[in-house]
């Protein structure tokens, strides 16, 4: 099939960007969306033009690197699917497709469709871990964990850190991402020890990075390729409120 692409091109963070149209010809329906972009890039490069810069790595939906907004939807409209796993059989011959980077202030554009998501790393660095240095861990079966808790932790831990939740949110809120990590660790007995400290530090860092507030519209959940549930946001709100009260009590 043949497609028209309207792609966001931007030389760097300081210069303004614009949409540029390209023709994608002879696209097979078995291609992934990113393979379709590879084809366009290959023809650009053989003409001596610079390829469209976009991020991708594993191309099997788990590394969270790919980050393009397709026709207004982060990763495209197919549910629970990253852009690298979206296949061209979901598009029609002759269609025009708009392709943009994640748009959120805390994710500045580096070039074209590449953005800087290091804000997410800094949130994890502020407290998204269990402080268990290597060595000295007890036998793995010494602390039984009820299966439902382990399953809940796993549901939250599936987050791939792609940032689609932020890109989908009108306020560029990172609540879904942060709450997934807070919940994953907070549900497990190993993570309960640092629960209060963790949620306070991570929320504080999230605010510092400039992510917006959550108004629970659920657009993040709808865009999440791993279907992380909005329930984790309510859970984090509870954990946060409890931690604030406890820390105020301890200070008084």
């Amino acid at each position, binding site marked *: 099939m043949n497609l028209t692409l309207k792609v966001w091109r931007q030389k*760097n963070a300081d210069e303004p960007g614009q949409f540029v149209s390209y023709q994608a010809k002879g696209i097979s329906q*078995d*291609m*992934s969306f990113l*393979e379709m972009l*590879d*084809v366009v*890039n*290959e023809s650009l*490069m*053989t003409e001596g*033009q*610079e*390829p469209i810069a976009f*991020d991708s*790595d*594993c*191309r*099997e*939906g*788990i*590394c969270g*690197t790919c980050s393009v907004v397709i026709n207004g939807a982060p990763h495209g409209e197919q549910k629970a*699917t990253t852009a690298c*796993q979206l*296949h061209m*059989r979901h598009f029609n011959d002759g269609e025009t497709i708009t392709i943009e980077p994640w748009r959120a202030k805390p994710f500045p554009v*580096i070039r074209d469709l590449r953005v800087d*998501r*290091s804000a*997410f*790393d800094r949130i*994890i*660095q*502020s*407290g*998204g*871990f*269990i402080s*268990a*240095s*290597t*060595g000295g*861990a*007890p*036998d*793995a*079966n010494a602390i*039984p*964990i*009820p*299966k439902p808790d*382990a399953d809940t*932790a*796993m549901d939250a*831990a599936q987050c791939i*850190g792609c940032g689609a939740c932020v890109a989908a949110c009108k306020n560029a809120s990172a609540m879904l991402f942060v709450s997934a990590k807070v919940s994953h*660790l907070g549900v*497990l007995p*190993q993570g309960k020890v640092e629960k209060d400290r963790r949620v306070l530090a991570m929320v504080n860092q999230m605010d510092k990075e400039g992510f917006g507030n959550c108004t629970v519209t659920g657009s993040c959940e709808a865009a999440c390729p791993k279907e992380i549930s909005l329930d984790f946001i309510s859970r984090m709100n509870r954990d946060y409120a409890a931690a604030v009260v406890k820390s105020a009590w301890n200070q008084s």
Partner: protein
Amino acid sequence: MLPDSKIPSGPLASKWERHKFDLKLVNPANKRKFEVIVVGSGLAGASASATLAELGYQVKCFCYQDSPRRAHSIAAQGGINAAKNYQNDGDSVHRLFYDTIKGGDFRAREANVHRLAEISRNIIDQCAAQGVPFAREYSGYLANRSFGGAQVSRTFYARGQTGQQLLLGAYQALSRQIGLGKVQMFPRTEFQELVLVDGHAKGIIVRDLNTGALSRHAADAVVLATGGYCPVFYLSTNAVGCNVTAAYRAHKQGAHFANPCYTQIHPTCIPVSGDHQSKLTLMSESLRNDGRVWVPLKSGDQRKPWDIPEGERDYFLERKYPSFGNLAPRDIASRAAKEACDAGLGVGPTGYGVYLDFADSIKRMGEPSVREKYGNLFDMYERITGENAYRQPMRIYPAPHYTMGGLWVDYNLMSNVPGLFVLGEANFSDHGANRLGASALMQGLADGYFVIPYTIGHYFASHTQHKPSTTHDAFGHSETQAKARIDRLLSIKGNRSIRSMHWELGRLVWEKCGMARDRAGLEEAIATIPKLREEFWHNVSVPGEAKGVNVALEQASRVADFMEFAELLCRDALHREESCGGHFRTEYQTEDGEALRNDEDFAYVAAWEHQGEDKAPALHKEALDYQEVKMTQRSYK
């Protein structure tokens, strides 16, 4: 000359304990005076960076991805082995050791493998403490499943995303150290050159992928944890960014490359659908626990799978290997699938595919149970192929997945270049000629959490060469070399796309040095690769400039190294006149088509020394002396 492998003397089971005592220590107050560079942030690199920082060393960690959380370890699906014997089914350290040695077709070092089996237990404890959400039983205790090449259930898993969860555990440990200021992290930064000062690895030159700037970093030691070299085949299950650059450029600086011909072709991947593909997707080996592999009995059978009656199907793994059945090791299962397809029995549009059928399991345990165990894999299969594997069998075909070969290291994981340590898939040490499923995660974490923290201190305590200044001539020289390579790539301005050159190379290596190899094919490849290289350096198109983001330059720089490395791979495959594990030479097989080893002449590690551009590499041999295990013909019948 190959240096001593430093394998400790004494009984196998106590070597590591004794060795740990014999290793020199660095006093806690002195540790902060030593700086370590870690390249790569996968399981091995992240766990090493975190642990070394916890001990007090100053660490700098580099990765080409935009975040250390994205390294390709994240894509490992099935699980991680550990000799916990939680299932009371006869597992032990010795059995995991033996299974791994046998699985590697008796081409790995006994002492390394035994250490790996011992440490496996600590890894699970450590990961559980970090909050890795392993699968659990209703009792709250950890669940296990079985994996290829083993008759016990020793594999721990987190749904079909074990690699992701283990990597996030290591990433979080690393993030904690970054937050504490103990690790300086350099994402989107790619290795260019290893810097040697007085023969010791003391620094690296890197390129910032955002700005294009080259920079110099000096340290007391350099750790490479940069993964394998599967993309030499172009299509593989690796991430599109995976590359051999750091390992190969270190090789050109003097580090020996060991056993490059040991490459693993994974049996259960989604078949190739066309030339446009950028990668192949693995379907976890764990699927073989409940899926049955078959092809039609008659060649050219065009009926739909469900129309082919039981009696007209060949469940070839169950037939050929009754005791291991569908859980035969990867090399064996892959070769059997290839043979079936070569005989015209393959299925799907290209004829290069076999069925992996869940109908019996769905009948036995019901669709919901199958969905709970493998749901995410079935979903992924449907996204890629548009087919529903609950209703019809999956189609699978082998694809390059992992590389057992890598830089040569001694028992301390140090290469022959003093101060250069190599961890995880990037080294050669533990898997011999074939890796068993669920062993890669185990090795990456063993190296990073539990081996390097002990052995690197011994190097610091035994040598007086300290971190040089980045104004040292060696840094200037290496930086000039890196810059010259970049300028040369940008000045070619030819007509061929980088992808088409990579594709052509990969196709050649896959055909001549893939699942089955022979002398004539390998000689042809060795003659053709230099011509491809010539074509690449004269006719590839690398647009753009050295400054700023340049995707084409990043790709071209990696492909350039594959163009050289491919020749080394084929040379190693040509010289090893035997079949073992993933290395199958059609001239050397038993009457029933199994790999025929030649222990008399080839029971050694082949370590190749770079001799200069366009010169054949020199071969060094490290004999494999087995104390505990008797080399036998591997049988899974």
